[in-house]
């Protein structure tokens, strides 16, 4: 065991936190237990399930696979930081509109992966959506309505873009 403590500065959902962590603290536990942001979930211990997906400097990453110290200086967005001014992000809305969730446990990670996909590819095909969600397991929905939710959101986001 290592008693060393390290001070990190991590910006989460726009707020910069200076915190002391153990070197072995995973980013997901830093978020959940030190910051109380429990929307990011832990579903496995082998980086397979994707329930812990967050954005690190704009990219979807599995926060169980990164040490908090590796995120020093980074900007993190979690599911709690996605809705702006109490308005749901279109992907969040899409999951509700298309019944893309049941128990809700995979949902935050699923949504963060989908948001990342749509930022990179605003017009994904079904196959591209499924490919982008390959790292996220859902045991409830059979993924059918998750794909529909992402398509719904994609249309909506493109529409918003045009109307501006």
């Amino acid at each position, binding site marked *: 065991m290592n008693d060393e403590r390290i001070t990190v500065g991590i910006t989460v959902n726009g707020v910069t936190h200076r915190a002391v962590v153990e070197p072995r603290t995973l980013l997901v536990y830093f978020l959940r237990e030190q910051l109380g942001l*429990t929307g990011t979930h832990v579903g496995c*211990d082998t980086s*397979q399930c994707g329930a812990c997906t967050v954005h690190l400097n704009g990219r979807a990453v599995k926060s169980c696979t990164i040490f908090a110290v590796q995120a020093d200086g980074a900007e993190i967005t979690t599911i709690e930081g996605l809705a702006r001014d109490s308005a*749901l992000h279109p992907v969040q809305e899409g999951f509700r509109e298309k019944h893309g969730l049941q128990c809700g446990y995979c949902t935050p990670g699923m949504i963060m992966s989908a948001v990342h996909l749509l930022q990179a590819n605003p017009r994904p095909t079904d196959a591209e959506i499924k490919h982008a969600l390959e790292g996220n397991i859902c*045991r409830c929905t059979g993924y059918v309505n998750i794909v529909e939710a992402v398509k719904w959101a994609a249309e909506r986001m493109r529409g918003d873009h045009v109307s501006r």
Partner: protein
Amino acid sequence: MTTQRAPSGLIGASIRRVEDPLLVTGKGCYVDDIQLPGMLHIAFLRSPYPHAKIISIDTAAAKAMPGVVAVLTGDDLSEHLKVPVPSIVRGMKIPPQPVLARGAVHAAGAPVAVVAAESRALAEDATSAIEVEYESLPAVADAEKALEPGAPLAHEEFDSNVCYTVTKKGGDVDQAFAAAEHVVRMHIASPRLVAMALEPRGVLASPEPMGQGLTVWLSTQGPHRARADLATGLGFPEHKIRVIAPDIGGAFGSKGPLYREYIVAAHLALKLGRPVKWISTRSEDFLTTNQGRDQAMTSELALKRDGTMIGLKVRVAANLGAYLQSNTAGPPQRMMAMAPGCYQIRNCHVEVVAVFTNTVSTGPYRGAGRPESVLNIERLVDKAAADLGIDRLEIRRKNFIRPEQFPYKTGVGVEYDSGDYGRSLDEALRLSNYDELIRQRDQARKRGELVGVGISTFVEPSGGAGFESGAVRVERTGVITVLTGSSSHGQGHETAFAQVAAEKLRVSMDQVAIRHGDTLAVQQGVGTFGSRSAVMGGGALAVAVDRIVEKARRIAAHLLEAAPEDIVQADGGFAVTGVPEKKVTWRQVAGAAYGRLPKGMEPGLQETVFFDPKREAWGFGAHVALVRIDRETGSPTLEKLVLVDDCGVIINPMLVEGQVHGGVAQGLGEAFREQMLYGDDGEALTGSLMNYAVPRASDMPPLVLGETVTPNPFHPLGVKGVGEAGCNGAPPAVANAVMDALAPLGIDHIDMPYTAPKLWEAIRQAESKKRS
């Protein structure tokens, strides 16, 4: 879709879920999301051996580690702390299951010691400082091998590995087989599966100040049953325990029983006077949470030459694992009760031999005996059709229980309420363009391609398992609180039940709040499993609402100075019949109920119902699958899957579709990918998501969903369950399609899962046999 629609027409509408705004924003609250001041974390040291004697345990080093508060082994605990297991079959053997192993372990993953520490990491660190010396004993993992003479004993104190044997029979099987003109014999094994609810199991137990009670947050499907089992297992009074099931991240049957870690956590919380949390890791979950299926079925189906089914014999070797959970004995019973499926088979003999092995305990996993049973009969029927040269549709139609025969008592003595199996099959054929599929298959076959079409027809029993409760309370301001004993773990109870209550009370959905999952708030209840919530929780709610309406009608009559029989329900309240402007709102009725009432009328406006229809609801359906297998690689592709389900009256079509999608995904996991494997010595070979393959998004084929509606004649809402329909019908449809694809090679039967290597090997062997 909107929740603001007119109150009437809610039942049957695809209302968006009221649960979702919190869950899509990360504001859900699962057990691990709760942190309490002074909270300790516990971690277990688990046996690496499937079967071993414990020679010695040394905890001194662990106890000396900083942050460690307590280290306990089985010898430190009272032997009265144990998992309560009901004896549901007379004479069944119940092996001891101390909450921490005492003297021996009978499965890898059995807890040997527990550490309580100031953090999860410190607790885990300390477990690795505990020294245990084991003496490995011979172990057995496979149920049929465990029944062979000379097999290792899973529990050294028993004289055999048989936990119990139980039989269901009807008619005269011997005479039927003597009169048979053809007998189909098959051996079919269902793979062992992992439920893999995405939220691992977990518990947080907190002693109340002054030592008066205990509050337990638990990832469970049934908080009231968990509370009673915890009281029994812990030796602590039930009425001083409050169990709260917060948001639950999936369960699929696996979170039904009270596992021993929960008793340990509660015990430590009381002993140490601090909140204690345990959250399973995924790896622990693979070694400790009930697994599903693993029934090996040896069957004979007796027929007349014209395809009439006259007799069925089934012998099931059901692998129970090492330790019994409270519901471990459930799935084999279920398998027996529906062994004849949709068919009139008057002479049946079904025997289950339930077997101990040195593996993780089995128990209900979505389907819980249904998928095993449907797989068995649907494979037998397809083989019978092939043997006798009868079309597989014709043989099914010829033997279906006919609509006018319901209620129908089957050959194993179980009564089905209603059904129209021919109609759902016809609808599946229509939606799949079946004749065209067959034409495509035949053309592909001429080109030497391996393409198969499979069908399955099935029943989906739901409800049952005792009662369910529902209480409806009209509050002082006229809003409505519903307390249901049927606690949810993702199904959408808060939406579906609100639809029912709002429609029947003629109010908008936002006037109704559904509360569940807290034993302090909710009257005794049972929980959610076995496709029962719409039937049992919905039934209780419907009856309670009817009683509320009747009482409120009398109050309204008093307020409106009219006779009760002249009072009718109106939007938002009641009115005098024919005089719609003479009306009162629910608020006015409630005001009177809690204010001034005439003599002889009891104050209050609350009704509690314990609903038990004394019969199950038998949904049904038909699936059609089109499978293509790459001859060179064995890789299978499910090109099309058509599903027709009949679950009676539908409360929310969107939720029903979601249940079907999810059930199908798990069924396809079973058919193509998933299997928990053990080595001959009982070592788990697929103990993580690295090597246990659950379906991913890209594994899902295009689905076509259809429905027929045969209302349940014995239910106040006309509903039947649907949660397990997808995983009942899809695997046998796929199995029949795969076997249809391989039929030209002379391959008779292969057990699921249909992985590419397994199919490749079968194809290679068949081809070399043909060449020689």
